[in-house]
């Protein structure tokens, strides 16, 4: 089973990101689960969401404590929440930031990190507002690229099934897929 944990703030779309990723994997004939853990359901409050992907039926209903991947939708959460808690030894952290992935890996104390300026990608694709860009679809596109867990087309198809601004969101995912950088220069 592949387990992915999302960290975001209320209103940024972490929950939808977990669902889009699950939908993409579902389209590749996997069993999936996507669910949020809400503290307080308020805009701006830290939100955790989870995606589980397996080629077998998933019965475990517990939250994710030892993720293979951590996806951070807002870099300021790094100092507010223990984002790398329980990350598997060879796990990968994907962060929405302009920063360099090697420096990010060092800062987080992890072996592998990837960085994507999803905020800029979202603004370029007119998703959300300048001060409240919706970065979730971009970051799932970037995740597809650095993890290989799901194909780009599956992510795009999952996004095209969203009720609003589907094409702009799909383009954000494609852009982020191309722009994401991973530590170690890979």
């Amino acid at each position, binding site marked *: 089973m592949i387990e992915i944990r999302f960290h975001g703030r209320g209103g940024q779309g972490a929950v939808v990101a977990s*669902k889009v990723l*699950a939908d993409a994997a579902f389209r590749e004939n996997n069993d999936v689960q996507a669910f949020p853990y*809400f503290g307080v359901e308020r805009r701006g409050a830290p939100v955790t969401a989870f995606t589980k992907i397996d080629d077998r039926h*998933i*019965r475990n*209903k517990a939250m994710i404590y030892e993720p293979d991947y951590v996806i951070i939708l807002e870099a300021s959460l790094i100092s507010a929440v223990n984002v790398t808690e329980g990350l598997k030894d060879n796990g990968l952290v994907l962060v929405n930031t302009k920063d360099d992935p090697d420096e990010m890996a060092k800062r987080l104390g992890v072996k592998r990190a990837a960085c994507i300026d999803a905020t800029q990608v979202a603004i370029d694709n007119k998703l959300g507002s300048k001060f409240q860009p919706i970065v979730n679809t971009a970051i799932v596109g970037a995740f597809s690229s650095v993890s290989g867990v799901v194909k780009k087309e599956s992510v795009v198809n999952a996004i095209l099934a969203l009720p609003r601004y589907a094409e702009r969101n799909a383009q954000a995912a494609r852009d982020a897929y191309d722009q994401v950088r991973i530590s170690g220069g890979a």
Partner: protein
Amino acid sequence: MVKELLTGNKATAYGAMLARAQVIPAYPITPQTTIVERIADLISEGRMETKFVKVESEHSAMAAAVAASNTGARAFTATSSHGLALMHEVLIWAAGARTPVVVVNVNRALGPPWSVWADHQDAMAQRDTGILQFWCENNQEILDTVIMAHKVAEDPDIMLPALINQDAFFLSHTSEPVDVPDQKMVDDFLPPFNPKEKLDVDDPKGFGSLVMPPQYMEFRANMARSMDRARDLIRKVDKEWEGLTGRSYGGMMDMYRCEDAESILFGAGTMMSTAKDVVDDMRNEGRKVGIARLRIFRPFPVDEIRYLADSVKAIGVMDRTYTFGQGGPLYNEVNAQLYNHTNQPFTKNYVIGVGGRDVVPRHIRSLFDDLEKVRENGYGEEGEIHWWGLLDGKTPREEM
């Protein structure tokens, strides 16, 4: 059949749509969930031909559902936690009036202290109302159960309301792949509701009128008979559904690897789904363990508990709530069924996961270990009722 990624709430709405619920009265505000929002979407998209009645409380929602059912309409509603508590009086009325309203409840803790997370007190507190109770472990089961519950509840020999339970967040807000059955297949399985007695201005009858003491008791005994009859019908309907879809939920109880098990854990909801994974792992290690998942709470699976008692050595009963005073509700029920039974396995109560505390595989393994230990050495300091994982300052945090 189409497979879709659905949350428990959306699976519930789809169930109501496929069951062709005709009247859905619901209170739309907290603690209501997105179930009624999805139903409103389906109605506005023209996919449901349903009268949606927005009411001012859950008490009113259930009252309107009972009235609709009295007229011969298939009635459905949804609620959660305090909303179900507020419905309590009308659940009793619905049962006594023999109106087979189906209610889906998102199991959430009651306050104070305030909580919105998974807990079973809301539903267990409705034990004595006369409502049938179904419990689910995944979203497919929710959708299927909405359809099956209508069939059981509306049977002329049953005519009792039904409550379907799903854990907050672990199902209600979790997206999972769900097979959405064909409408045609559901229509063949679930014919339109057509009660023998209904409110009809052209054929007036009195509903809910007074009866004197020589008759009230007979009406109550009649309800008890219907509850008892529901056991066989639930098993039959489960088999019929399996024939159509390949999916069975075990009839009255979902038993997983119990055949030659020595120790089993019995409980309700999503934590029992997680527990099945642990049982597979422990079986690979040679441990004789199994899971009995509560599928139906009312009527209680008496035969199934006694069947298990004939072969297992220990039953650990997991309660995601407590009946303040003595024991968890499931523990008390299990012990009650064993007292007049020849074989009495060892039992212990684990109060666990209360108020949405996550139940993870490691906990399930610890419970099996504990159960086997106390069976050999006695209950020890904790006694027969163990609040598992309390922050007591003694237990290491990693064991919580």
